[in-house]
């Protein structure tokens, strides 16, 4: 157990260092979601009241698309110089690698969300009517839901012929309940019409189920020959 965490932290530290120096994933995600925000704001020109109803959907769709950009780079980075093959033959537990990658992606997408949310507030004149603190568990659980499955499916799609296209094709169908939970939960908090507790429980269930499934199956995926 201790070994698992030390390897996880070492890999995570390496990924953060790489990202800090190159800023590849963050820059492309940030610019991409900025474009989405701008295009959405041209496409819909809502009043403050309407925007409360639609912005939950817009914001999560933007983050979902942007997250795919980062997720695609997760494993592609390890293909150069056969690093992934080296991982495969090393005695390090496969789940340590998975956890490090998932935590890294969680961190990057969270940074993106922290930077982009103010922009949404500005562009759409948002004013939260419900209990705003509930947005934090929704964001944390929702981001983890996207990232944990995304990291897993990215490991799968990196083995296919058309990698970049394959990831959203695999990730989006399975993510539908999570996206529904995030969007409906955010809208519930923004409008204050109904409580968001149900969606938080839904996201928590989704996270527990799929984190378990990812950890149980990642070794098989990594070593699949």
């Amino acid at each position: 157990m201790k070994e698992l965490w030390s390897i996880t932290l070492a890999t995570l530290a390496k990924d953060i260092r790489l990202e800090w120096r190159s800023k590849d994933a963050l820059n492309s995600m940030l610019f991409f979601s900025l474009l989405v925000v701008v295009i959405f704001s041209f496409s819909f020109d809502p009043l403050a009241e309407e925007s409360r109803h639609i912005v939950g959907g817009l914001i999560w769709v933007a983050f979902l698309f942007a997250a795919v950009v980062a997720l695609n780079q997760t494993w592609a980075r390890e293909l150069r110089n056969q690093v992934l093959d080296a991982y495969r033959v090393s005695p390090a537990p496969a789940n340590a690698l998975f956890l490090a990658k998932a935590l890294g992606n969680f961190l990057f997408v969270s940074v993106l969300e922290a930077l982009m949310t103010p922009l949404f507030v500005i562009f759409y004149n948002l004013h939260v009517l419900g209990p705003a603190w509930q947005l934090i568990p929704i964001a944390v659980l929702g981001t983890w839901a996207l990232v944990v499955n995304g990291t897993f499916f990215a490991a799968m799609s990196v083995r296919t012929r058309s990698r970049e296209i394959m990831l959203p094709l695999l990730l989006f169908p399975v993510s539908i309940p999570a996206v529904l939970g995030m969007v409906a939960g955010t809208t519930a908090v923004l409008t204050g019409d109904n409580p968001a507790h149900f969606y938080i429980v839904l996201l928590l269930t989704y996270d527990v189920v799929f984190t378990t499934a990812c950890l149980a199956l990642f070794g098989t995926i990594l070593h699949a020959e």
Partner: protein
Amino acid sequence: MKRAFPLLAVLSLILLAYASYRALVVAPTDALQGEVYRIIYYHVPSAWTAFLLFFINFIASVEYLAEAKASTRSAGKWVAIGVGVAGAGVAFLVPMPAGIRPSAIATTMLAIPAAYLLIGKYFPGEKLDVLAVTAAEVGVVFCTIVLVTGPLWARPVWGIWWAPGDIRLTSTLVMWLIYVSYLMLRRLSNSAQTQTLAAALAVFGALDVPLVYFSIWFFRTQHPQPVIGGGGSMDPRMLDTLMLSWTAFLFFGFLVCWARYRLELMRRKVEEAQALQSLMDDTTEPAQARYRRNAS
């Protein structure tokens, strides 16, 4: 296969034709919906067949993953038996929502270990994966029929083509999306790892469907409640026709699966033989030149 298949194909055609005759001519007209309701004889049997095939795909995929390692082989078997027995017990202990009989749930739960053991016995090793891809492909076809016939019926009866947020519609659509992505993965990945990756995706898909169901369960559902096993009432002549129709669809589905299964087995045999051939060939002639020479 050579002799039995055409015979069975003709039989299936006759059965389908007779079921259609019963559905379109013999069965009485619905008191409320009129003639439109007759699409039920295509919609419901397709849905049942599709769900059955997706269930087979799930079991075969889990078994394929479990069979890969000696340590998980017997564990998989015991987990399946445990899930079946525990599920059947829970069905009787926990109060069920109105209209759902505990015995129906218990039978469904016990079908899990039964299917697991039977499939494991008759489809050992690589054949599990062949079975999984067959079931998924044919299942997607039947699920497409469900998704097409549903709106055709809904438009005149509900006044809308599609009810977003409806529990059955959404979960069927998501299931369809998941299995289409499963087939895409199989198409686009490298041959050596496809089996394992696809099996893992099938497990994810199967975990997802209950969550989709759960995520929208409190929405008011538009879809009519199930009439079989749900305590609903249906004219016995309609029920007979529905069952006949399902038999015809199952028979046809079985035939298509059989053909697809054989095709996939043969395709793999050919691939294997080709790979072996290229290993045996000790010529240093480039493959392209050899191909051109053989072709001419």
